[in-house]
């Protein structure tokens, strides 16, 4: 479970997130939508502390994952990132073989048992619905795969370290429609085992894949509710304007 309390976030002097509080239940898909620069990706990247990599950022408030404030000094960021996996906007496989891409997370976390690694690679590729397409060419470079396959490989790579939460930052925005629908189907299946948080530009996609939707604008969480309700009967006029295309 993820919970934030009164998160404020700054890039230097820029106030990127304003008093955002949210609760995300396990085994659900939560989508964040909103216009470019509204803070939805920034908010997503708080959950695995990817924003730590940027200079000059500042955070106040609490971000609690499974009962622990992940910004406590006692939290080791690499342990957190094992638990909270991430898939990025552009497929970013490593210049390694398909097998080594999926095994990477295990190897850097000191897993050495070869049989276990082989087994996890197969399981993860199956979970990412990629196994059938690549099982005969695991030694081939990941760059030989199509964009959509590469993105599913990145999902498999994230799953291999057995996270409980999967963050997806516009995972289909660089893909063609067929690859996109494969990723969306995958999200439906994966939510039985994982808590999924997805940022998307595409409102139809949010409507198709998510249980809950949060609408961000200018760093504020304007509305957060069940996806159906959000798209059929939004409470706020800003939300209404955005999802009907009058703004954004």
């Amino acid at each position: 479970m993820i919970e934030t309390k009164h998160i404020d976030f700054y890039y230097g002097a820029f106030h990127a997130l304003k008093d955002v509080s949210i609760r995300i239940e396990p085994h659900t898909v939560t989508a964040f939508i909103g216009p470019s620069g509204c803070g939805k990706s920034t908010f997503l990247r708080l959950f695995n502390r990817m924003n730590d990599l940027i200079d000059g950022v500042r955070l106040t408030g609490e971000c609690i994952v499974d009962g622990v404030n992940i910004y406590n000094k006692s939290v080791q960021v690499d342990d957190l990132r094992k638990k909270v996996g991430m898939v990025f906007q552009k497929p970013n496989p490593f210049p390694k073989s398909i097998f080594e891409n999926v095994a990477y997370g295990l190897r850097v976390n000191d897993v050495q048992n070869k049989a276990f690694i082989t087994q996890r690679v197969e399981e993860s590729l199956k979970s990412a619905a990629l196994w059938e397409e690549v099982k005969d060419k695991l030694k081939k470079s990941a760059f030989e795969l199509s964009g959509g396959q590469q993105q599913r490989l990145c999902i498999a790579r994230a799953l291999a370290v057995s996270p409980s939460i999967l963050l997806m930052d516009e995972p289909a925005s660089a893909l063609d429609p067929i690859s996109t629908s494969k990723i969306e189907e995958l999200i439906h299946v994966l939510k039985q085992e994982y808590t999924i948080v997805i940022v998307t530009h595409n409102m139809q996609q949010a409507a198709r894949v998510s249980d809950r939707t949060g609408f961000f604008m200018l760093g504020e969480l304007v509305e957060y509710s069940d996806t159906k309700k959000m798209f059929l009967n939004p409470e706020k006029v800003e939300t209404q304007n955005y999802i009907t295309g009058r703004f954004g």
Partner: protein
Amino acid sequence: MNKRKKQRIAFAIFRLLSLVVVGILLWILGFIIYRGAGTISWEFLTSAPTDGMTGGGILPAIVGTLCLVAGSVLFAFPVGLMSGIYMNEYAGNGFVVKFIRVMTNNLGGIPSIVFGLFGMALFVNTFGFGDSIIAGSFTLGLLILPLIIRTTEEALKAIPQSFRSGSLALGASRFQTIVRVTLPMAFPNIVTGLILSIGRVSGETAPILFTVAAYFLPRLPHSIFDQVMALPYHLYVVATSGTDIEASRPIAYGTALTLIVIVLLMNLLAGLLRRYFGGKVKTD
């Protein structure tokens, strides 16, 4: 004049000038080969100079230059690589890094004769190495250090951030990310920097003048504390200050040709290395 005509004339000039550059290069090479090829023989490459450097071969100078290349790279490559990694991957963009960067660039701008003088003061005298391979290697190493740091930094900078993010998001440490992802990807370009520095080291005369190079020492070195002859300095000696300059003229051209061939061979080797590593990490 219409725009098509203008374009035709402009491109004609560009083409002509690039051909002139190639022409000059071929001319130099051709000239050296024409004058030097006759001198080159198995004996020339494998024996020591004789008869006041008007006869015999240049083996001690070849060996000396190879020792200096190996020594300086052995010293400068690890140091330069690690500094480059530190500056691009760890240090952020604070005052300290900017200072180091400016200083590194300044170091690169210092005339090589000054390095020679400094090397003599520090390595030869203060450290007491005397005129020796080790003193020369350190001096040449200092000379190419900025180049290696610079190319390492640039090579790492060219790796898209997304690869680092991808690795870190899987729980890898920054060090693991560098060793397993970033550095292998940057390696082909780092090797290019190394090639350039090897070319530089083999050809530099000034830094070795006071630190290692021997005027005439017709034997091979026994340890890193020995003096050696070196190809560029030997070339200078036989061309300008030998015992009989006219008689040693062919030896000068033979030495020049040998030097060029050694540098070309090293470039070739490094190119193969680059292709080998490049093949492993191709990014599409």
